[in-house]
């Protein structure tokens, strides 16, 4: 992992900041919701304990069968369709004993009138086999303070109907519409004042549905039905009371034991989702999550509440639920408190608050916090990354320069960052110091041989001149022998000293070398001729393909380098091996090479072979060999701005030394 990636990872720790903020907000949100629920619950409890007497009795003396007259907002159009009835599917249902005939019965009040809807279906009906019989018939009874009315309705023809009750007194309008599976009858009756009951018998062929177990019709208007369906009106005065008691933006319902709405505080003001942006909704969902399942929100004119929360309350336990509309981010808080009358749960007060306002305030604060901290985090991370990138780039630059300086490519003085004031600058300065010390040391090592030879020359001269003086005296044969040996030793010593100072002298002669435009092809050809003369019996070839390669160089120095390489090749190979001199030109470079067969370079020598005092030859020859030859070759190449290379030829064909010169 690079430095900057590490710092980047480190800076990601600041992501903890928004995370903590998120956690805090979740807690805050939970606390707020809690307190709201408690407020709602206490309101509901108060309402449950202070129900007006009529409501209490309505709950206490609940009839066995009843239909809550729903307050219809719009007067239904008498057309036999149920689409202008809200919650048309929630109604009283009954079936015939043989299970072939079903009815759904709806009743409601609107505009002072009473509306009922019968939806009759034949279970076995398929479009291919209609079971409809010609004598479809509904008998409807309605008992109210205004009297007892009986309507006998038959399907003579579908369409609008004008009905009169038996014996007059009641009249109604209706519409009969045949459907695919049966028919639908929609009726408008005069308003019933006060309590009313109803009963009906629906006949279709052999099947019959009776709302009571037995119902009979007395010709004189007396009707006996053992089980009437009570029509329970919604309590408008109670609704007003509820509306007054509930907090703002909340709604209250009084439901009976079956969950039918007896009173409703009113409409919930529809809040537009446009108040919240998608980002806020997203953020809110992040905070609140969907920790409870969304119960369908109670909508306007819902005739019956059947959610789990309400059922819980109707079972005698207070319950609460909160849910969040994923689309609008509106939070619905629903509490249900049972209404206990005479020791039994008779119904429930349900309160719902749609608490956008409060929680969205949190939401906005959270949004700001989150966005701010996120921006800070990414800004910080970006800053860190930039800083780390700069830092690592500087470190890389420094380390690159140092390693280049170690390879001798760059002068120590030009190390980057040395003028910087921070720790890296100090590191660079220390590196420069170190490199300078190393360079000094290297220089010392390189010049050591030369200096040493200079220092050795004087004592050598002393020994030699003394021996010379001695040799001019008459000596006995034995002394003569010793003298000769001593002189041989001194000769060898002198040769060593000369070899040691050779590199130094060469460096000096490089400084005064004559640079001229020379033809290297001619030079190599001439040299090869010279070497053939100098090493008779050896096969020395000049491989030149070009006719001329002109280069500005110091030919004397190049010849000297070639001398060393050829001398080396001759020494390393045997009498029968060939030595090849070659010169060739590639892009921007001229390559002078000396190749010989018969030897290999030891692998460990390839790097150091051109250093001073490293010798390849392991056998001690007659002349001392200190391995300065190849060092001199390198000096010559470097003086020309070039380099040297030694390599083994493939398939053990020998060794090749190459001087690369910039053209």
């Amino acid at each position, binding site marked *: 992992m690079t430095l900057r990636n590490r710092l980047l990872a480190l800076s990601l720790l600041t992501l903890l900041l928004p995370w903590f903020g998120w956690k805090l907000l979740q807690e805050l949100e939970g606390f707020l919701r809690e307190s709201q629920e408690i407020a709602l619950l206490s309101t509901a409890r108060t309402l449950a304990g202070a129900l007006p007497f009529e409501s209490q009795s309505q709950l206490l003396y609940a009839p066995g069968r009843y239909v809550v007259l729903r307050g219809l907002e719009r007067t239904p159009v008498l057309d036999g369709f149920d689409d202008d009835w809200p919650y048309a599917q929630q109604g009283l249902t009954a079936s015939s004993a043989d299970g072939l005939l079903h009815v759904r019965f709806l009743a409601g009040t609107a505009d002072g009138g009473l509306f009922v809807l019968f939806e009759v279906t034949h279970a076995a009906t398929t479009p291919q086999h209609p079971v409809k019989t010609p004598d479809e018939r509904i008998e409807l009874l309605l008992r109210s303070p205004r009297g007892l009315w009986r309507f006998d309705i038959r399907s003579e023809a579908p369409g609008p109907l004008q009905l009169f009750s038996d014996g007059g007194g009641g009249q109604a309008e209706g519409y009969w519409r045949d459907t695919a599976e049966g028919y639908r009858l929609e009726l408008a009756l005069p308003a019933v004042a006060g309590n009313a009951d109803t009963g009906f018998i629906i006949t279709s062929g052999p099947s019959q549905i009776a709302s009571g177990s037995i119902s009979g019709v007395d010709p004189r208007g007396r009707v006996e039905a053992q089980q009437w369906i009570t029509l329970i009106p919604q309590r408008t005065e109670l609704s007003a009371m509820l509306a007054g008691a509930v907090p703002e933006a909340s709604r209250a319902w009084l439901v009976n034991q079956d969950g039918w709405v007896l009173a409703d505080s009113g409409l919930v003001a529809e809040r537009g989702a446009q108040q919240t942006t998608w980002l806020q909704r997203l953020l809110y969902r992040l905070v609140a999550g969907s920790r409870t399942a969304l119960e369908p929100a109670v909508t306007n004119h819902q005739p019956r509440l059947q959610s789990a929360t309400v059922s819980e309350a109707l079972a005698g336990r207070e319950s609460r639920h909160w849910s969040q509309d994923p689309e609008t981010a509106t939070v619905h808080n629903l509490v249900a408190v049972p209404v206990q009358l005479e020791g039994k749960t008779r119904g429930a007060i349900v309160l719902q608050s749609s608490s956008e306002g409060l929680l969205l305030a949190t939401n906005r604060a959270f949004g700001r916090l989150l966005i701010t901290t996120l921006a800070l985090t990414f800004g910080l991370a970006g800053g860190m990354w930039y800083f780390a990138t700069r830092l690592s780039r500087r470190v890389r630059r420094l380390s690159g320069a140092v390693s280049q300086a170690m390879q001798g490519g760059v002068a120590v003085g030009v190390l980057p960052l040395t003028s910087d004031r921070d720790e890296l600058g100090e590191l660079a300065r220390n590196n420069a110091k170190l490199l300078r010390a190393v360079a000094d040391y290297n220089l010392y090592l390189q010049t050591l041989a030369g200096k040493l030879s200079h220092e050795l*020359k004087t004592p050598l001269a002393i020994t030699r001149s003394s021996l010379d003086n001695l040799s001019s005296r008459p000596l006995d044969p034995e002394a003569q022998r010793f003298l000769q040996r001593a002189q041989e030793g001194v000769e060898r010593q002198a040769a060593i000293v000369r070899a040691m100072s050779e590199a130094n002298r060469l460096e000096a002669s490089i400084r005064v070398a004559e640079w001229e435009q020379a033809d290297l092809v001619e030079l190599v050809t001439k040299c090869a001729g*010279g070497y053939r003369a100098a090493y008779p019996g050896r096969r020395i070839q000049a491989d030149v393909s070009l006719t001329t390669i002109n280069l500005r160089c110091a030919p004397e120095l190049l010849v000297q380098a070639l001398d060393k390489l050829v001398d080396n090749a001759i020494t390393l190979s045997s009498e029968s091996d060939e030595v090849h001199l070659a010169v060739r030109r590639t892009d921007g470079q001229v390559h002078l090479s000396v190749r010989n067969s018969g030897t290999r370079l030891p692998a460990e020598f390839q790097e150091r072979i051109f250093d001073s005092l490293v010798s390849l030859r392991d056998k001690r020859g007659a002349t001392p060999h200190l391995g300065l030859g190849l060092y001199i070759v390198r000096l010559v190449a470097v003086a020309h701005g070039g380099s040297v290379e030694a390599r083994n030829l493939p398939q053990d064909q020998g060794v090749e030394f190459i001087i690369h010169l910039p053209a």
Partner: protein
Amino acid sequence: MQRHIAIVEDEATIRHNYEDALRRYGYHVSGYSGRSDALAAFTRRLPELVIIDVGLGDEPEGGFELCRELRGLSRSLPIIFLTARDSDLDVISGLRLGADDYLTKDISLQHLIARVVALFRRVEALSSRGADDQLLQRGPLKFSVERMEVSWNEQPVDLTVTEFWIIHSLIRHPGHVRTRPQLMDDARVVVDDQTITSHVKRIRRKFLAVDPGFDQLDTVYGAGYRWKPLASTAEVTDTA
């Protein structure tokens, strides 16, 4: 008459050895260890030949300084530099100051004496002009072995003793390549190839100074040098 040689050398052992050798050969030798006492003695009486070490005691260039001062006293006094130093730069500065020869300390005593004798011979030849002489002629080159004089197109070329012997070695067999070791032997110097190269270079420059068209001294790469015979002129005309 005994010739008088002065040796200025700070290393007493070497000085004594050289003194002994030269005395044995029959010279009168005085040794000096420093520049000041040498100079004091020289102002009283000049020797006939001076051998000077370049580095004298605390003065690394004291020999050069002494040479300059000696040249002020006498234009013709033969001076030989003898030193442990051997860089081209030292050789050049030594010779530029008017030294007649430049020898390194690894020379053997026999060689040293040979150089001294050669130098004396030259001085003698200069003073006894007209004596019979072995004269070599190679085209425009006239070469007097006895007087150690060389001229090109009748113009004298001022050569040091080493240079003189190098030319002598080359022109004895014109057209033949003389290797550096051969030249070293002929010039009776024990130096390395590099020094021979710089000697040859200097000889060439001296000839070029009198004749910009000079092209007789040929480098044979990888082998050595040769004297290119002039095609138009008659070959070897030795006159005894």
